[in-house]
């Protein structure tokens, strides 16, 4: 059986054990759902300007948190050692863990988006770009969650480490405020954030327009961030997975 199928087995087991549980699904949906509903109630005409950013934020927080929690929990319980003892390459383990976390993020974001479409009347001008944005964003953020999990021992340490990056980038990545309205000195930081490009891809999917002229730049940038996340996670797993 190939390493691919073993990665699939890891993913399926994680979905069965963690991601498929109803409390987790509602946890991922509740906060962004309530936030968007409040914005809609306040002003039904402008909530759409923020909806793609909130969906991207859901991906960022959901995926980084869940990937980190699952790995940290398994390290504490000793079950992560089972993967290290099995004839699996490090890439297989990373792929298996990241794929299940990504599926969770995509499912949550998709459920939220479908709710917006069917309940609040949001339209998707370009569903393909929207879908690609969801998938790439989910993969990138899951990998970053895994990277955080492997350098710490406790769940709260992983959360603290990630919040150090997550909250600041929330305010500079176009979630609540368009990039064009950011002060010039913040813009370089915004362009260094993976969330920026995911938000812009989702904006393109929902409204057909973004801060960039087309999908090429955000697409390539997201792919680059995905590659960088993979390389970082793989390097950290090779050095720290046994710790």
């Amino acid at each position: 059986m190939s390493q691919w199928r073993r990665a699939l087995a890891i993913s399926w087991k994680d979905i069965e054990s963690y991601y498929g549980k109803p409390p987790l699904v509602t946890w991922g949906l509740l906060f962004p759902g309530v936030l968007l509903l409040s914005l809609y109630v306040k002003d039904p005409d402008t909530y759409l300007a923020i909806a793609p950013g909130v969906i991207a934020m859901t991906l960022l927080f959901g995926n980084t948190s869940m990937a980190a929690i699952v790995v940290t929990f398994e390290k504490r319980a000793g079950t992560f050692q089972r993967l290290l003892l099995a004839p699996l390459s490090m890439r297989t383990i990373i792929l298996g863990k990241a794929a299940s976390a990504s599926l969770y993020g995509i499912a949550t974001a998709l459920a939220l988006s479908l709710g917006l479409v069917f309940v609040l009347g949001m339209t998707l001008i370009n569903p393909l770009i929207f879908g690609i944005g969801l998938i790439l964003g989910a993969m990138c953020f899951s990998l970053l969650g895994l990277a955080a999990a492997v350098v710490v021992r406790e769940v709260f340490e992983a959360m603290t480490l990630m919040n150090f990056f997550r909250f600041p980038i929330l305010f500079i990545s176009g979630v609540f405020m368009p990039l064009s309205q950011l002060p010039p000195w913040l813009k370089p930081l915004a362009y260094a954030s993976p969330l920026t490009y995911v938000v812009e891809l989702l904006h393109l999917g929902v409204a057909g327009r973004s801060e960039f002229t087309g999908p090429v730049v955000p697409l390539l940038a997201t792919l680059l961030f995905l590659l960088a996340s993979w390389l970082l996670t793989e390097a950290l797993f090779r050095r720290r997975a046994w710790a």
Partner: protein
Amino acid sequence: MSAVAAITVSGLSKSFGSLQALHEVNFTVPRGEIFAYLGPNGAGKTTTIRILAGLLQRDAGEVSVCGADVAREPVFVKERIGVVPDESNLYPELTCRRNLEYLGELYGLRRKVRTSKATELLSFFDLADRGATPFGALSRGLKRRLTIAAALVHDPELVFLDEPTSGLDVPSARALRELIRTINLQGATIFLTTHNLQEAEALSQRVLILIRGRVAAQGTPGEIRQRVRRLNLLEVSFSPEIEAGPLLKACPAVLQAFPQNGVWRLEAAEVHASLEQLVAFAAAAGVRISAISTPTASLEDAFMSFLQEGGPEVEAVP
């Protein structure tokens, strides 16, 4: 099965910062043996297993497991070994059967094979009626059994057992020892670490004693016992029972006396003088010596002797 040894270790060293966990460790485990790897806490036993199982990088030395270097060919080696860690660490939320089947998937077994293997192992470990029970709901003894079963799901050539009977009650430990014997008879080489020296003596063909990361002795249990300095031990039974105080007072050649199930185990400065003094003491006290013997040193005596000598005079048996 090839003639290549199951494990060959040469000059193995490992440090954690300034702490030298393993220093120039050498040993060979022939295929088909039960090999006991003994040592006090912190001797380096688990570090050795972690290196041999590919969980830890070594600093120096050569290591061959099932004919390959685990650092260079980890997947090849891991396909051929099973590891039972000192803590039972299966997935608590999964049922016993699902745990075995999932591990079968990780080892690349096809669906039909892993299903029948799970059934076979549940039956072999007397867990057939627990297939649908979550691992987390099992008793400690049953968890241990399933953890050993999980290490056998892919029919490994070599099984590492780290403290397999630790924390189990006597019947569970005895049953587990029988299972270990059976697994070995079915062809698997067993690398056993344990604090239970009677267990090591009863199960293993060869023993290695590791003290502070160095090999203190290795060989068959008989060879290890012979290598210990001759202990002047006497075992005496008195009828009726006597107290230690008068005995030690009347027999100055007896250095220490320990009661053990109605038998006095005496450590003597000199056996001949002790015997004369014991006979004189019995006559004077009006008690009868109902049995007397000079026991041979056990593996535990040998282990304690190596420990008390303050570490290894490094010696190795080829």
